[in-house]
Structures are given as structure tokens and as C-alpha cells.
């Protein structure tokens, strides 16, 4: 099962390694982990996506809560939250496929943010599934590099 953990932590040196270390020590998966500041500068928010059985999911939450630098843990299913990931993808293009690529970008709501004579960088912000789909669509083009942020998530305004 996939779960998203939104973890508020003290914004201090070493906290990221403590939380990441907990996952490896306890044999929990990390699908993705994102950290950023919150409106309160003394607090950071980590968004961790993990998979595991029911017991593991419960243990992850409990073990996170046990960490002394952790202020609050919220756990939710993907369907309960708005989830977004940013990807930058660098591709080679030529006269023949340029139009195709641009059409794909238009369909998927991606934008071209940098360009040279034969390469372009495309930016897309969407759910992980749609980003996977976008990569699939670009498979026929020569992909040079990909950088993805991992998922950030907030619970929906009206909780289900």
C-alpha cells in the first residue's frame, strides 16, 4: 500500500539524516522524500512517500512520532491529498520531431523553459503517474537528462 507522510520537523542541522536513517534502520521503503521550509521558519515539512503492509505503515508513523525532532506526523492515502511533483527533462530534437514534442507538451500542460539549436528543457508539474506518462510519450525522442523533485502533498480542503 502506498502512503504519504507529511512530517513537520524542527528546522535544524542533522534532522533530515535522522529521519532518513530511521527508514533504512527499520527496513522501511522510501519512494520519495522532499524537504522544505514552512511558513514558520523554525519548522520544515518533509513529504515522504512510502509503501508497505498495514503493520509497516502503522510502525512508520509511530517510529516517526518517536523521533524527538518530529513535531507532527500526518498520514494519508493518495486519494485524500493533492499530490504534485516537478520534473525537468532535457531532450534532443530535430526538425522532424519538434512539432510532435510541442504538441505533447501542450496536451500534458508542460512548458519548454530552455532551448538551443538541438536541445530543449521541458518543465512539467503534475502527479507522479502523469509524469511517468509524459516520459513514456517522449520515449521516441532522445532523452538526455531527467531531474524530478519527488512528491509534495497537502490534504484536500474537504477531507474525504
Amino acid at each position: 500500500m502506498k502512503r504519504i507522510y507529511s512530517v513537520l520537523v524542527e528546522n535544524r542541522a542533522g534532522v533530515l539524516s535522522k529521519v532518513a536513517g530511521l527508514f533504512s534502520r527499520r527496513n522501511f521503503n522510501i519512494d520519495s522524500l522532499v524537504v522544505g521550509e514552512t511558513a514558520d521558519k523554525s519548522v520544515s515539512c518533509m513529504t515522504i512517500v512510502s509503501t508497505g503492509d498495514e503493520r509497516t505503515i502503522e510502525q512508520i508513523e509511530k517510529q516517526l512520532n518517536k523521533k524527538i525532532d518530529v513535531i507532527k506526523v500526518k498520514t494519508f492515502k493518495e486519494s485524500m491529498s493533492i499530490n504534485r511533483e516537478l520534473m525537468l527533462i532535457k531532450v534532443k530534437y530535430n526538425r522532424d520531431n519538434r512539432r510532435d514534442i510541442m504538441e505533447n507538451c501542450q496536451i500534458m500542460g508542460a512548458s519548454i523553459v530552455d532551448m538551443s539549436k538541438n536541445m530543449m528543457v521541458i518543465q512539467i508539474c503534475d502527479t507522479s503517474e502523469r509524469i511517468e506518462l509524459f516520459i513514456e510519450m517522449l520515449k521516441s525522442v532522445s532523452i538526455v537528462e531527467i531531474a524530478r523533485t519527488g512528491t509534495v502533498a497537502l490534504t484536500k480542503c474537504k477531507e474525504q
Partner: protein
Amino acid sequence: MIGAQAIVKCLQCENTEVIFGYSGVAIDPFWNEMLKTDIKKVLIRTEQNAAHCASGYARVSGKVGVCAVTSGPGATNLITGIATAYADSIPLVAITGQVNSDMIGSDVFQEADITGAVESFVKYSYLVRNVEDIPRIFKEAFYIAGSGRKGPVLIDIPFDVQTAEFSGKFSYPETISMRTYKPTVNGNIVQIKKVIKEVEKAKRPIICVGGGVHLSAAEDEIVRFAEINDVPVVSTMMGIGVMPTDHPLYFGMVGNNGQAYANRAMNESDLLLMVGARVADRAVNRPDLITENKVMVHIDVDPAEIGKNVGPTIPLVGDIKHIFEDFLEQDDHNDNHDDWVKLLKEYKKEMQVERKPAGAAYVDPQIFINKLSDAVDRDAIYVADVGQNQMWSCSYYKVKEGRFLTSGGMGTMGYSIPAAMGAKLADSKKQVLAVIGDGAFQMSMMELATMRQYDIPVKIVVMKNGYLGMVREHQHFAYDDNYSMVELSGDPDLSLIAAAYGMGYMKVDGNSDIDGSLIEFLKDDKAFLMEVVVDPMALTR
């Protein structure tokens, strides 16, 4: 005032009586300031034992144990001691010196990233960046170590922070304000009532006590609760001594190395109160089966333990002493489980394993430990090391009003002698024994010098069989007696070791010598080394 003075002041504010440690340049400013205090300082012989000493001290005094060592190898040597304390939830504050702040990260002499290295063995750690933070950090460290699920906290203090001028007035915080750490103390009243209902309903209730009961000092409350409700008690290794061994409601230690009748009692119960126990692999072989045909109540101060190893339960989170006080207050029933207790007594009689006594050339461990139990003071503190000697101690030592200490979670060889030293310093009036094999003795015999230097009279029993017996026993069963890496043929002459450290010494090599030897062994309050020759081929069961 400099940082090192501020540290000493913090320790005084925490009423620290004794600190175990080792010197080194990076921790020298601290030891220099410690000269001016009457806090007892014990220079141990290797850093690991500083943590073990502090652990023994903490377990007997009920306070937080303190140790301090230098940076680099001093700090890394301490790790096994810290991990041992972590596995058994023993409250420690470990102070380590560190290289100058501006050098950190450049691999200078005796630098080690100790906060990084101990992360998975500590409850929390600090690297002190600013001298002004010292009072707050120490206040928090002692609070974290000694509250909730107890455990070790490490404070790493760079040399320049120890020597920096502490501007302003030193004031030790009276209260803690940590938004992230608020351990649960009181049990949820709805859950408490639910548990009491289950106890009233149960026909075959049983309580399994773990080390958490000692940590919460809830022994009396549990014994009273068991007596009032006529509920039998079994224990994990860490829970030995919660109830006196000869109590009519006590039915021994559970687990692979425990008594068969204790396991049977637990399995056949219809209500199991698991109290301050992790349901660890050595205590419960198949945690998935333990909840079959019964209601299980799991009482623990750490919510993460509930559901970690064992399935559906009635969870009850909080301090055990508080919870059992509430039980005693809420529960006015005097239940009677005569039939159940009678059945367990029959099991105990039937399933008592008769050991074949050792041949004349050896001391039989069962006979020896039985006699030792009768010879020691009623309130003696018995520290068992790790290995076959530990299993024999668990099975045959009878705790009366004293304590039984051992390294249960980590199983760290060489724990007993330093832990016994710490225990003796916590309560000098009590008789303190360390019972150890010849393998672990050679891991820790350097501390005989510390015992002599500070006159810490621990009574040591070395069960000598020339083998790492527990592993030899494993190889006997699992590898058809193909012994690999378990023979200790280079063992030293223990009489010379004892003489070298100025200790009394005696060798016992037959059952007929036991009685007389024990009188000599325990006749006064002086350090003594007793060598007990055990059959190398003896088994624990």
C-alpha cells in the same frame, strides 16, 4: 565562567553523584573543572565500560547514569556501551569531547562524527555549537534520558565550546519546553476500565512482566495487583525479580531459554497482560501465535512497541506505575483463580527439567547457583553476564528482595563486572555479585584495576569451562560438534590474576566444596574472585 564550568554546574544541578569516564585532550577542560567538585569521578580502563558502569548505577539508583570520554576513539569505544543501554532502555547521559568547532569535518586528529555514528543507538543526541546552550541542552538531555521510554542521550561538546567564556549569568532551567517531546504518563481511563473488565471476566489470566516494570519502579504495585486478583505472573529475562522467585504466584521466565511451564502457562491463558515487555524474539518465539485464543493487553510507555512485534491487542500506553496504581484504585474485586493456579503448579511440578548432575571433577551449575542464592543476602544485587552462565543464572538464581541485572536486549559480553561496579557505587550497603564466564571475564578483567583503585568490592564468580560455552552449545546441536572459534585454551591462571590485583581468590572444582567456599567468598565486604570449574560439555538445558 567557561563552558566546562557550566557543564559541571549542570551536573550539580542534576544531583549527579558519580561520573564514569576516561580522559583525553578533547575532554580535558571538563575533567579539569571536575577536580573542583565533590562529584565522585571513576576512571575506568576502557571507554565501553564507562557506559556499562553508568548503566549498573542507573538501574540500581533509579537515576540517570553519567559517563564522559574524549573524542575520536574514546567516543567510538563508547558505542557498544551506549547500544547496550539503548537495547534495555537504560537512562544515560554520555558526554563526549569533540575537536574544535572550526575543525569539524576536516578529519583532524581524534575526530569522529559521534552524533552521526550513534544515531540508531540513542534516544537523542546533541552537538553543542554555542556555549550559551549548555544549560538548556543538559536540562533537556537528563529529562529525555529519564522520562518516557528511558534511554541514552549523547552530548558532543567541542573543545572550544568547553573553553569558551560563558557570558551572562548561569541559570539552570527549571522547566522544559519542548514542543516535540511529551511522553504519556497516565493511562487512558477508558482503556483502564476496559482492562479491568477483562480481568474480572478472565478464567485463566496471566501477567508477563518485562524490564519496563523495573524502569518504572512498579514492582510493588504489580505484585499487589497480582495478589489481590489472584493472577499468576511470568517474566521475560529483563523482568526477573519483579516478583520474588519463591512467590506462590510466580511461574518463571518465558522464552526459548526459559521454563517450559512458564511458556505453557502463557499459552494456555485466556487473558495475557504484557507489561513493559517488547514481546521480543527471545521471549516469544512465535508472536503471531501468542494472541490465539486469548485477549492480550499490551501495557507499555512506548506507543511504538504496541503492534510492533505482536498483533491485535488492547493497547494501554503510559507509565506502568501510574497505570497499576489506577488499576488498584479502580478495581475492588478480590478474584479467585484457584483452579488455574493449581493447574500451573502441577505444570511446574511435572515440567521441571531434571538436570544430570555434573561429574565429580566439576561443579554443577544448577547446584552451585541454588546454593549461592541461599548464601547471599536477601537483598543482594546479582549481575549475570552473557552466555551459558546467564542462562543458568536466569534458571536457578532465586531473587528475594534484591535485583537481577543483565544485558538482555543486546547480550553484550563483559557487561556484568562494570555494571556490578556501578551498582555497588549506587548502593554501597548491598552485596553485589557479578557472575560471568571465562570468555566475558577476559573482555572485562581490566576493570579489576578500577575496582582496586576506588575500592569497589564486587564479588566475582567466574564459571570457567575453557569455552565460549553458549556458542559451543549451539555448535554442538547445529554443527555436529564441529567446534569453530570457541576454544579458549589460552586462559590465564585466575589465581595469579586475582593476586595481581590484590583480590581474594578461591577455586571450586567439585560440588562437595561449594558450601565451605561460599562462606569464605561472602564472609566480608571485600572484592573476591571465585573460580568455579564447570564441565566444558555442560548444556543449559
